[in-house]
């Protein structure tokens, strides 16, 4: 009788230990999943920032920014914007080139939506002839 009681106690203790282990495993898994997702988001945001800077600096520095974009691999879309895909990130540049000013915006997005967006403007100094 005593032996049977002891084995019941042992089983209950074992069951409680397993339950505790299961619950804590779920918590630990959730923590690691959340950490992984945040780490991936930080990595995507870092890459988006670097891409935006690369494009903006190229536009600011080149004599012919539109040609420079084409050299970088950008392709003109049906709506007139330029787009480029790199490692799952899509860079989209809308640029309106007037006489002395190029203005528009750069947008980087992934499958979840827009990660980063900045305005761009570039002033061109041009020689003028008096009428």
């Amino acid at each position: 009788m005593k032996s049977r009681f002891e084995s019941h106690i042992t089983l209950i203790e074992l069951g409680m230990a397993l339950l505790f282990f299961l619950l804590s495993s779920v918590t630990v898994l959730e923590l690691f999943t959340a950490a992984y997702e945040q780490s991936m988001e930080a990595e995507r945001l870092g890459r988006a920032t670097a891409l935006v800077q690369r494009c903006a600096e190229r536009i600011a520095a080149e004599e012919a920014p539109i040609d420079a974009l084409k050299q970088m691999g950008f392709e003109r879309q049906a709506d007139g914007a330029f787009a480029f895909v790199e490692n799952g990130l899509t860079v989209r540049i809308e640029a309106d080139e007037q006489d002395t000013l190029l203005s528009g915006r750069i947008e980087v997005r992934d499958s979840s939506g827009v990660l980063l967006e900045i305005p761009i403007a570039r002033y061109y100094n041009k020689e003028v002839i008096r009428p």
Partner: protein
Amino acid sequence: MKEEGRTRVGLGVPSMVLILLVLCLVLIGLLAFVSARADLNQGRRYAGLTAAYYRAAAEAQQALASLDEQMTSAYFESENEQTYREAYVQIRQADDTAVMWIDDDSAVMEFGAEEERMLVVEIEAEAWENASERRFRIVRHALEDRMEWEQEGDWLLMGIE
């Protein structure tokens, strides 16, 4: 505990080892989470500052284009250095908050770029004879930190006062 010559280990010791193991896993998980969150916050801050800088830079370029347009009109309307200067005096007196004229030929433009940073663009107007080629020169284009640092107290750095 010895029973019939064999040592019997109850469930207490494995349970304690299990609890210790789980606590270690939770601690490692928490550290990974806190570290990833800090990385993400840092990334967001950096992305925000980058966007703020380029917003300020775009505003500066638009202001320069607008100023160039006004100075080109002044150049077209003028006949010589004297009349050109008279024409762009009116530009200097215009209610343009972005452009601050330091003297007759120099102006400064400032654009906020968040966290007490300012993009400062300084220009110098060209003389009438050069105005056909360009109306002004950009002599400075710099991001300045306007944060005021306050000394917390007297302290020694590596023993040097």
